[in-house]
């Protein structure tokens, strides 16, 4: 097999959606080629059709979504016309696929080894013993610690990263010519993501497989792609070598996407007020779950005596990977969770010691914005009502509260007349704005934002961050901003605290912490951000 022989080529592929969908076609006239020993990155926002294309290639589309023309050439055969039996041979042997959610992509009731061995038992007639050895060597190949134990383990006994490694082992079992990876690292922590990307790169080079890598994160594109395809609403707007597309994007949409990616370099520091509006001193919280009469309880210390200060009008960023305790700390501040020890002083009174009833009455001083736009708004309530809820609970007459809510809609950049529409009629970005309006309705002194933009597309993310910055300026808001994405933190936070396993390992001005990190973990975090130099400062 020569160096650059074309493995897969799509020729004007179109996929029709069933009636009632928001557009007629998921894919329209998509043509692209993937050669062996090459990683082609397909990038686009959610709804751009990138995953649909992957499923179309594997002919795994939901049964009312159909390919209505175009050809998918693989090893000289058109997969669109292939019979079910022929497709079955191709799947797993010719083309392999790995998916986004490691948690649910493996059968929870069967061991890892068993599921990998199944690849061999379907496509080959190797003996049981031979299959076993192949499985163990594969697991070693993807550098899973102690393959023998891992083979016998069940999916829930492995971490997210290890599960993804098992998926990769399974996909590469029969040395397929093409590997399709549908956002394999999106659900992983940034450090694990870095290792997985390195692993895929390494395996691809060693085995010379062709890889179609689907992602929405330009950092990942910069880190791993040889060639790039940019998609919007089911159409390819631009494709070419990675460096060309990244540094000299031709199409306006591509330029806009790249511009929306927050660079790692922090903007010039703002002047900070002298007094602190909120001081947190050695707060800690330990979860005690399960256990029978005290014995066998599982104790997990989530927050270990954290001390931080938030100057008036400033934005304190708290960054860390999942499980670092950052959202537990946020919930302790807002007293959704009662901290075990420590004090949280806001404008003089200590919120940690107040009774539940007092917290309920004083709650307008501190408000929270949540992460998931779909789950943070009660689907059964109109938008205006949602925003007006807070003031109504605190005694404001309904009519006035609704009127105020309409004003707030304008403040957060929403059309005031949209007040009587239901949450499911808004986009993700608009819903986050409603959440923000709801929090601001009570005119809080401090706003706690728990990963407010993580669930949004990059472009929408940028707009919400811009809105937050304006509001901070106009209303003199002090914000505690929780995120796992250092690039976002760099953009908006004045001060940054890095948390690991419940403790603050480093904190200080954003520029300094990102400029020259002191703690080894901060350095590892910064290095794991995909895209290397591109991520540092890309000017368009």
């Amino acid at each position, binding site marked *: 097999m020569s160096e650059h022989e074309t493995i897969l080529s799509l020729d004007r592929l179109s996929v029709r959606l069933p009636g009632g969908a928001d557009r007629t076609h998921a894919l329209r006239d998509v043509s692209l080629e993937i050669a062996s020993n090459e990683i082609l990155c397909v990038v686009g926002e959610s709804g751009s059709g990138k995953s649909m294309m992957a499923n179309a290639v594997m002919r795994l589309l*939901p*049964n009312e979504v159909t390919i209505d023309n175009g050809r998918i050439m693989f090893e000289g055969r058109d997969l669109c016309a292939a019979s079910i039996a022929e497709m079955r041979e191709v799947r797993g042997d010719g083309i392999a696929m790995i998916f986004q959610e490691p948690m649910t992509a493996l059968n929870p009731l069967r061991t890892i080894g068993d599921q990998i061995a199944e690849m061999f038992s379907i496509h080959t007639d190797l003996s049981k013993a031979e299959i076993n050895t192949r499985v163990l060597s594969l697991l070693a190949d993807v550098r899973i610690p102690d393959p023998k134990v891992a083979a016998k383990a069940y999916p829930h006994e492995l971490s997210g990263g290890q599960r993804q490694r098992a998926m990769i082992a399974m996909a590469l079992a029969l040395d397929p010519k093409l590997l399709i990876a549908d956002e394999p690292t999106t659900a992983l922590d940034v450090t694990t993501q870095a290792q997985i990307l390195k692993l895929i790169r390494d395996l691809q080079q060693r085995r010379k497989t062709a890889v179609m890598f689907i992602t929405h994160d330009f950092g990942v594109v910069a880190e791993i792609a040889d060639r790039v395809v940019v998609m919007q609403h089911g159409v390819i707007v631009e494709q070419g070598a990675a460096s060309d597309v990244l540094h000299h994007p031709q199409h306006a949409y591509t330029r806009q996407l790249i511009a929306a990616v927050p660079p790692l370099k922090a903007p010039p520091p703002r002047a900070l007020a002298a007094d602190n509006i909120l001081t947190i001193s050695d707060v800690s919280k330990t979860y005690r779950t399960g256990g029978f009469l005290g014995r066998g309880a599982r104790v997990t210390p989530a927050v270990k005596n954290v001390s931080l200060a938030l100057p008036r009008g400033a934005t304190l960023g708290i960054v860390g990977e999942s499980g670092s305790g950052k959202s537990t700390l946020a*919930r302790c501040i*807002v007293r*959704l969770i009662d901290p075990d020890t420590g004090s949280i002083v806001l404008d003089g009174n200590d919120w940690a010691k107040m009774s539940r009833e007092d917290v*309920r*009455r004083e*709650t*307008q001083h501190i*408000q*929270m914005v*949540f*992460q*998931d736009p779909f*789950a*943070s*708004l*009660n*689907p*059964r309530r109109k938008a205006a009502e949602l925003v007006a*809820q*807070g003031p109504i*609970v*605190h005694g404001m007459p309904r009519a006035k509260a609704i009127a105020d809510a309409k004003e707030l809609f304008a403040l957060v950049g929403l059309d005031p007349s949209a007040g009587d529409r239901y949450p499911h009629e808004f986009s993700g970005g608009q819903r986050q704005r409603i*959440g923000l309006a*709801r929090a601001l309705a*009570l005119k809080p002194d401090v706003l706690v934002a728990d990963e407010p933009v993580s669930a949004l597309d990059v472009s929408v993310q940028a707009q919400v961050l811009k809105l937050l910055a304006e509001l901070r300026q106009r209303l003199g808001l002090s914000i505690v901003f929780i995120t796992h994405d250092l690039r976002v933190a760099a953009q908006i936070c004045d001060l940054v605290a890095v948390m690991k396993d419940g403790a603050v390992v480093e904190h200080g001005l954003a520029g300094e912490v990102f400029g020259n990190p002191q703690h080894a973990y901060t350095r590892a975090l910064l290095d794991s951000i995909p895209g290397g130099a591109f991520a540092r400062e890309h000017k368009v």
Partner: protein
Amino acid sequence: MDAVKRYFRSPAAVAGLILLLIVIAMAISAGWFYPRDPLALAGRPLVWPFSNPRFLLGTDNSGRDIAAQIFYGARISLLIGGVATAIAILIGILVGAFAGYYGGWVDNVLMRITEAFQTLPNFVLLLVLVAVFGSTLTTVTIAVGVVSWPAPARLTRAEFLSLRNREFVQAGRTLGMKNIQLIFREILPNALPPVIVYASVVMAVAILLESALAFLRLSDPNVASWGNLIGLGRDVLRVQWYVSAIPGIAILVTVLAVSLVGQGLNDALNPRLKGR
């Protein structure tokens, strides 16, 4: 809205609705078709259906017109089914809501009680309730309701457990809403749809339980219920089998209608399942 459109797309749901409307129409028009008391003596006992123009469906072994009893029986079954279901759902929601929301020892105590009700065979408990409090229409209805609340309680509790930590509830809490407000204004509206759909199952079971009680001659004898008629027909089963067969079919049609409507609602409300 589109849930209604989805509901009417499935033929089974539409058929169920039509059947249910027929039964309801029968219940409403009973007084008009058969003005006399259905339990009054109408003619000679055990007249075969369609053999005598005055009694379309014949008479039972007490000389009462079967057609009249079927029409009036519709009222009783729908009444008992409806009221008993309301009682069961009401208790179920209250127990489920508090157990699901508060958790801890409240959840433990309420769940032990629910388990106790479910461990004890519900028909035996029904027998005891009827034996103790007599078999008038009200006691039978309340007894059936009291026996069938554990299932909706479990369902509501499951819904509350999953919704209680949802972010919109936490948001409500940060806005300063009291627990009671959170339960009834925030969580309950979202927990209701599956429970309402389940109400059709509870109603089907309630109608079957009442007819089983009447079959064992433990239901209210002064009321023209289908179960009584089946029980009465049991003595003449070998020859005049129609006395038991006709009310049996009436119960079957009603419960089928209620279940079909329930299933239609379920598929309309969460289309994901039906989609494929």
